[in-house]
């Protein structure tokens, strides 16, 4: 079978969509209060650091994704155990995106809508996208990302008359600990999750492109998040910002230029939905690839539909409503995701470095390469 290849531009757009999705619309990082911009920058820097690590890891084993590397490093049994852990993590993020979708649509736009319908459409689209493979996803995100950036910039440009700089002052009002807390939560929600991309970025053509895509993706995505959060707080004030479930939606609904340009908060919903769909596809692709590897299946396409059906079911089981969802993502997720996003990656990276250094002469990926081909 032909190897699927994505360009670095497509990879960057995928990363931008991945990062901007939920972070734009949910009040994540609100712990840092008025200093949220410092927290975002800090989290972005941390994300850059981790992305350097991931790109190094991928370049140590050229042409292999996360699951190959895991099996390669830790052997069949332990490697597959780690694979299962990361399949679970990817799947978990995917479920939360579906949760976000349903909670957003049921609370904001269509309160009387059946949850079944809301879940059905993104899941079906996701299955369709995955069946077509990463190339299609890449092309789709390249096409859609410009729309998203233009819409976000336009919304905040129109919002400038309502902004008040006093809402961000004074800096360092509550000291350093809220900022650290905000950084922590912002790192775990969009920036730490880029571990998922290690399963995908092996499709990027050259080694240098991996690093480049990671860095640019995080920089652009992070700046969008920064812009959005700062504008939201400048418009709403931190007290009102923290009261809402969807502060971004509330902020954009303030836009009123004359009596003519108004009620365009659908921009907020649109960006969320587009980016959310992409993030869902990315996470599910990672999960599907991993499952295929663990079960020794040639092509992951075979496993896509069952996984999507599982996702469909899981979205009804995991969280019951938006209150549970915000409780989980706001307080517990950061600790829960820590092993997946920080501890295990660092461990794997160190182990990989040592192992590569020890057997410098022979090629490290004989055995798994066979599995992959076989």
């Amino acid at each position, binding site marked *: 079978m032909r190897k699927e290849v994505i360009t670095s531009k497509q990879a960057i757009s995928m990363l931008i969509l991945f990062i901007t999705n939920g972070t734009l619309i949910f009040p994540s990082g609100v712990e840092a209060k008025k200093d949220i911009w410092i927290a975002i920058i800090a989290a972005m820097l941390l994300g850059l650091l981790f992305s350097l690590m991931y790109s190094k890891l991928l370049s140590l084993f050229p042409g292999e994704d996360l699951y190959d590397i895991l099996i390669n490093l830790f052997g069949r049994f332990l490697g597959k155990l780690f694979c299962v852990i990361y399949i679970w993590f990817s799947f978990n993020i995917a479920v939360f995106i579906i949760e976000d979708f349903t909670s957003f649509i049921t609370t904001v736009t*269509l309160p*009387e809508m059946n949850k079944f319908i809301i879940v059905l459409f993104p899941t079906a689209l996701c299955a369709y996208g995955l069946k077509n493979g990463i190339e299609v996803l890449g092309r789709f995100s390249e096409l859609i990302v410009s729309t998203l950036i233009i819409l976000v910039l336009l919304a905040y440009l129109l919002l400038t008359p309502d902004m008040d700089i006093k809402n961000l002052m004074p800096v360092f009002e509550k000291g350093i600990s809220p900022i650290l807390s905000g950084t922590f939560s912002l790192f775990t929600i969009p920036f730490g999750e880029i571990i998922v991309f290690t399963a995908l970025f092996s499709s990027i053509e050259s080694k240098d492109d991996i690093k480049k895509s990671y860095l640019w993706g995080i920089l652009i995505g992070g700046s969008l998040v920064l812009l959005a959060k700062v504008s939201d707080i400048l418009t709403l004030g931190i007290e009102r910002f923290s009261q809402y479930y969807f502060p971004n939606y509330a902020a954009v609904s303030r836009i009123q230029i004359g009596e003519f340009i108004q009620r365009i908060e659908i921009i907020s919903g649109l960006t969320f939905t587009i980016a959310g769909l992409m993030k869902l596809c990315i996470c599910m692709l990672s999960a599907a690839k991993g499952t295929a590897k663990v079960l020794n299946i040639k092509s992951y396409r075979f496993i896509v539909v069952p996984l999507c059906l599982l996702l469909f079911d899981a979205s009804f089981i995991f969280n019951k409503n938006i209150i549970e969802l915000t409780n989980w993502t706001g307080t517990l997720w950061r600790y829960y995701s820590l092993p997946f996003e920080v501890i295990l990656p660092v461990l794997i990276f160190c182990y990989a470095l040592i192992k590569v250094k020890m057997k410098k002469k022979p090629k490290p990926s004989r055995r798994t390469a066979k599995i992959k081909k076989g």
Partner: protein
Amino acid sequence: MKTYKYLITILLIITSTLFCSCTKSYNEIESRAFILGVGMDYDTVAKQFVISAEVVEGRQGSIGAGTASKVITGRGKSVFDAVRNMITTYGKKLYWGHAKIIIINGGLAENNIFEVLDWVNRDQEVRDDMRVLFTTKNTAKQIIETRKDENIITSTVIHDMMINQGSVSSYPKLDLWEFLYDMSTPGIEPIGALIELNSYEKGTLKIGGTAVFQGNKMKGELGETQSKTLLFIRDKISGGLININKEQTKVDSNITYEIFKSKTKIIPTYINGSVSIVVDVNTQVGVAESSEDLDFTNNATIKKLEKCLETELVEEIQTLVSQVQRQYESDIFGFGREINVHMPNEWAKLKNDWHKNFSNLDVRANVHVTITGSALTGKPLRAGDNIYEYNTCYSILYPYRLYGNKAFTKKYQTS
């Protein structure tokens, strides 16, 4: 193959559009009643909320198509209960997306404004760019039922009054979100516009004055002139008139100024070692009307007028601030917020007992007025040699103006 693909695409678009509309949230326009304005009262005897909503519906008839509005009322144990109970009398479900104004009874506001605003803030259909108004002299129901004839939609009239507030400035223009922002932000307290029935003309309304809040409770009212001063301090003034009486001016003339542009800075500083506030107003006005003939091209006159207006404004600001400090202990000017922004360390000390600290705050005003013009005429009307001819013409229109005029009496006494 190509036609096949083409057909599939078309089919997809058609089916997707069909699916878009056929949701459960689908509504016919006739099945919903569109609310334009809402008034909220509390019936203390029955212990019920009384919500009166102005509903607008399209009308077709032999006379011509148009819109007509009617007021419907609902009662209930909570605001939402009352809103839902409207169905039991009116039949249709209400649509809140177009609601423009919300009028809240003063009694309700004095008790706990939060009872009312929570639902408005929480509900997904109600938008928070409604204008908030308060009424103390009448009930909200009376206000919303007032109309001169049946073609008038009261809510739109009130909405227009609020939109054109900029050229009157005798009441604050507040969206609901601004009110809620003031309520939730430390160091600033909410205000609201007051509305009442116009006692001079039946069937009309009058907006004027400000309701003063402390947290979620209404504390009192400010008059129209005071409201203007309040807007000066809050830097929300964009127009309006200032009347100066003859007694206050040194040039012996009643003068009306129009405010063109105004910028206020609230500067927290240390005076004598304690935190004080300097209200720095920079305003541009024009002479709009003068009861006596003055030469506005004369620089000395202009300087004198500016000086006099400055002292007048300083006095007004200081009087208002000390009155609010004494009477309401409510920081409606946002001094606390400014201290928070510019002196975070001081604010940490002051914020715990801010109401008390606010009433002891030393506030000074510093006003700078520039008179930028005097509309179309600069030279006095009656100057020069034509004074008698002019006066005789003028006397036809305004005969009373001639009495007390020295030239006039002189001329007619001699003849």
